[in-house]
């Protein structure tokens, strides 16, 4: 079962349209919420007149923050345990100031969404615009408009870690170079937008919440706190989710708003995020600028590496905070490499834009982009092969775990043989020969490579101030031999109903068809930690493995006793029935039943600095080597992927088909992030990409096939699993940028930004003095 390409259990209902997503849960008397959102990027709110809106037929309620105050709503806060971070509380609705276009100001509850939107137009807001700042560098200028005047700055958080030996390491380096890399703003864009539906159930005195959220238990905690309820009186269930990608792992004002509206109106209420809300007033990602200083020797070995990160975090009203990815970036600077002495200076800057938060990769893509661009630049300067430069910088094979300067405990296999396997599988030498022939005929063909060590199954503690590194599972064998598994993780499409069933089935020795996995329900487990950060195989897989293994051992004990008594072998089903229904016959000391609850912690993370000042964010690590060949069309700037290979080591693989699907999907998102997508604002903070016509994600015609080759170096955690979901989205922007840079190098074009859209490349080619051949284009 482990390692089997089992067909997915969830597909029968999803492929036939019987999935039930958030907005598919109709209940009698359901009302709908529409949210009045700021059209100014920065303004003082003077008054909100809701009288006309309240009178519209079909309107049940119109609320502002003053109304929520009256019902006892509590503010939200980021709870970051970081020294020096700005203290910050915010309310579910804006109170007296708005700081980004789209910030929620008021809410209407009505019998239909259409009527609610009619009512929004009747609300009169009187506001006084304030100066706007959208660029993080401009926001750090002394005269910049301040989002929070009480801070005296727009700097939300600064972290500087410069080891004492760094200056000497640079001084001793034969060569030192500086680069600036730009990572532009994108949106994760799950196809199903956010949503929440809530109703107070008087019979049980509980608040029943449905939410399209990757972390249901933690959402329960935050809703309970915001509403002033005990956690036990709030029930959260996340139904089928149409994607998440981290974008749905925060705890949003809208989710708390829905809970409060259910309590105040005493009606069931639903809010479904529409696409414009999703693109402009939800959560954006990635925007960082890296100023890199690298010291290296004549062999291309990096001996000193400093990255100054300026991270735009938008308006930081997001729990858990959007600085999480920036913290991961500075913790993942070396990735697969040993760069000698490493330091960083991180500034997280607030601006009048939508909050920045999680997106698959969570800060690792930016760190990886910097390391890969830098190594390529070193290779170019020294006239060395980029693959060879990587070899020379890879982590040594021993010791394991490899402890980095910051304390990360990297337990991956040997990386040089892994990189060699990539070169073989990709046919690196053959591609270089093809490239030479192509260049001779004037074609812009380039090759990019990436060596990635990815942190997986991280602890959330450092970015949330609570929530440990664990996962819960409850496995039971019912009297008829059927197996139920409840987990605290939450699938958004990754196939957990199948992969976790495979784990349970393997440990119990039954067919997968006998196992049913459920997730996302706070009523079934006391606490769980959801799915994000490539954690589920490691954490939920480990918990299920433990629980199922314990159950199997118990069944063996009972079965052995039964066999001894009867003199014939007994079946799985007979043991199950015995354990529940004939308990007087069980061996002495054996409890009745077959049910095992496990809260599993691998134990490798160090979420706060230990005695040595070390922190380790990840329970385990995975390694992925990627190579691509591209051709750049010199007339249109289109980038065509000619070949793409990923050699993937995510430890013991539960289901290779699922892993390949994760890699192919992440590859598509990575391509989109560099070739097609950008969230844009004008200088006044007005969003310019508010529809899917402006924000263009990859279509079926835009995504080449990524060939995946599997390598398995078992991890040291239960099952030998490693995480994998984020691997290709981390690698792809870097490897595509490397290939485009390689393709355009003969023309003198340098690539230091994730912006590789056709228009950008056309402009770069023109600036380099290159003109496409009109006749060749005409006759094509």
């Amino acid at each position, binding site marked *: 079962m482990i390692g089997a390409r089992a067909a997915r259990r969830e597909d029968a209902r999803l492929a036939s349209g019987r999935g039930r997503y958030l907005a598919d849960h109709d209940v009698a008397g359901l009302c709908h919420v529409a949210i009045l959102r700021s059209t100014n990027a920065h303004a003082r709110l003077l008054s909100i007149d809701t009288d006309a809106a309240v009178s519209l037929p079909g309107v049940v309620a119109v609320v502002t923050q003053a109304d929520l105050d009256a019902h006892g709503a509590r503010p939200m806060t980021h709870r970051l345990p970081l020294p020096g971070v700005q203290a910050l509380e915010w309310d579910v609705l804006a109170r007296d100031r708005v700081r980004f276009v789209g910030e929620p100001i008021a809410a209407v509850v009505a019998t239909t969404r259409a009527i609610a939107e009619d009512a929004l137009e009747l609300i009169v807001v009187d506001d006084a615009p304030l100066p706007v700042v959208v660029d993080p560098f401009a926001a750090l200028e002394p005269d910049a408009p301040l989002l929070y005047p009480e801070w005296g700055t727009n700097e939300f958080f600064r972290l500087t870690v410069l080891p004492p030996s760094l200056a000497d390491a640079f001084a001793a380096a034969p060569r030192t170079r500086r680069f600036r890399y730009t990572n532009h703003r994108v949106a994760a864009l799950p196809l199903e937008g956010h949503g929440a539906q809530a109703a107070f159930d008087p019979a049980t005195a509980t608040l029943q919440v449905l939410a399209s959220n990757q972390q249901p238990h933690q959402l329960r905690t935050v809703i309970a706190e915001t509403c002033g309820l005990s956690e036990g009186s709030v029930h959260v269930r996340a139904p089928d989710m149409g994607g998440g990608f981290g974008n749905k792992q925060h705890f949003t004002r809208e989710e708390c708003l829905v809970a409060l509206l259910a309590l105040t109106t005493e009606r069931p209420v639903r809010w479904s995020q529409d696409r414009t809300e999703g693109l402009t007033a939800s959560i954006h990602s990635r925007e960082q600028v890296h100023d890199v200083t690298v010291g290296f020797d004549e062999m291309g070995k990096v001996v000193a590496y400093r990255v100054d990160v300026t991270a735009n975090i938008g308006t930081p009203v997001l729990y858990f905070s959007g600085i999480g990815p920036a913290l991961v970036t500075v913790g993942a600077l070396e990735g697969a490499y040993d760069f000698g002495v490493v330091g960083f200076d991180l500034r997280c800057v607030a601006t009048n834009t939508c909050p920045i938060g999680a997106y698959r990769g969570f800060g690792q893509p930016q760190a990886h982009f910097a390391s890969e661009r830098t190594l390529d630049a070193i290779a170019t300067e020294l006239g060395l092969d980029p693959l060879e430069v990587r070899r020379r910088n890879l982590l040594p094979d021993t010791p394991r775990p490899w402890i980095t300067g910051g304390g990360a405990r990297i337990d991956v296999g040997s990386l040089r043989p892994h990189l060699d396997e990539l070169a073989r599988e990709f046919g690196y030498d053959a591609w270089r020969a093809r490239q030479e022939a192509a260049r001779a005929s004037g074609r812009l063909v380039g090759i990019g490579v990436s060596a990635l060590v990815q942190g997986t199954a991280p602890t959330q503690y450092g970015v949330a101030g609570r929530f440990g590194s664990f996962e819960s599972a409850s496995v039971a064998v019912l009297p008829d031999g059927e197996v139920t598994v409840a987990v605290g993780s939450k699938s958004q499409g990754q196939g957990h109903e199948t992969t976790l069933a495979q784990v349970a089935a393997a440990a119990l020795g039954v067919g997968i068809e006998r196992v049913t996995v459920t997730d996302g329900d706070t009523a079934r487990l006391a606490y769980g930690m959801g799915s994000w950060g490539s954690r589920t195989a490691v954490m939920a897989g480990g918990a299920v493995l433990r629980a199922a293994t314990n159950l199997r051992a118990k069944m063996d004990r009972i079965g052995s006793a039964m066999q001894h008594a009867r003199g014939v072998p007994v079946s799985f089903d007979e043991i199950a029935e015995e354990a529940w229904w004939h308990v007087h016959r069980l061996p002495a000391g054996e409890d009745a039943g077959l049910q095992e609850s496990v809260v599993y912690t691998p134990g490798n993370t160090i979420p706060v600095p230990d005695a040595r000042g070390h922190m380790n964010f990840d329970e385990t690590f995975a390694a992925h080597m990627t190579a691509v060949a591209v051709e750049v069309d010199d007339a249109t700037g289109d980038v065509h992927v000619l070949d793409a290979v990923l050699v993937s080591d995510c430890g013991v693989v539960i289901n290779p088909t699922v892993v390949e699907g994760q890699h192919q*999907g992440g590859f598509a998102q990575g391509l989109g992030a560099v070739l097609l997508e950008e969230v844009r604002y004008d200088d006044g903070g007005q969003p310019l990409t508010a529809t899917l016509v402006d924000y263009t994600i990859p279509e079926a015609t835009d995504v080449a096939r990524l060939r995946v080759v599997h390598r398995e170096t078992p991890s040291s955690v239960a099952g030998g699993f490693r995480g994998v979901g984020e691997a290709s989205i981390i690698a792809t922007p870097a490897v595509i940028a490397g290939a485009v840079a390689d393709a355009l190098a003969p023309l003198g074009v340098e690539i230091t930004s994730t912006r590789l859209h056709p228009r950008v490349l056309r402009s770069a080619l023109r600036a380099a003095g290159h003109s496409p051949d009109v006749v060749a284009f005409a006759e094509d």
Partner: protein
Amino acid sequence: MKQNVKLEVNGTAAEVAVEARETLLDVLREHLALTGVHAGCEQGACGACTVLLDGEPVRSCLVFAVQCEGERVATVESFGSPGALHPMMESFRRHHGLQCGFCTPAMVLTAIALVAEKPQLTEEDVRLALAGNLCRCTGYAGIVDAVLDVARSGE
């Protein structure tokens, strides 16, 4: 003010009382409880709302129900059920052509219509025909394999 609209949905006569501004998408999901059709953008840009109207794929978010008097609508539910999957659905399953499943009903309907219209398909044909159905999870490879498999087996 509501108008009565009579249409045929999945082979059965249906009559709904609707406001003019209710789209076919709204009516299918909210009046007829056919939630297999999904709202991905309500602006005609993602394809998740695709249904068959008189046999042809349309974006149900861009059609008002009142425009559909007397017409035939087919949604994903009429093409298969969890216990009896349509061959296209089964092919999606076999080739890992879905992950979260949100785009899938629309993708399946578009693919069924495509194969019916043009049985000989290249990979390029398939990708172009499905270009208007956005998927954020799969990266499309499994979807393309699923459609080509059905086309090649002549089902």
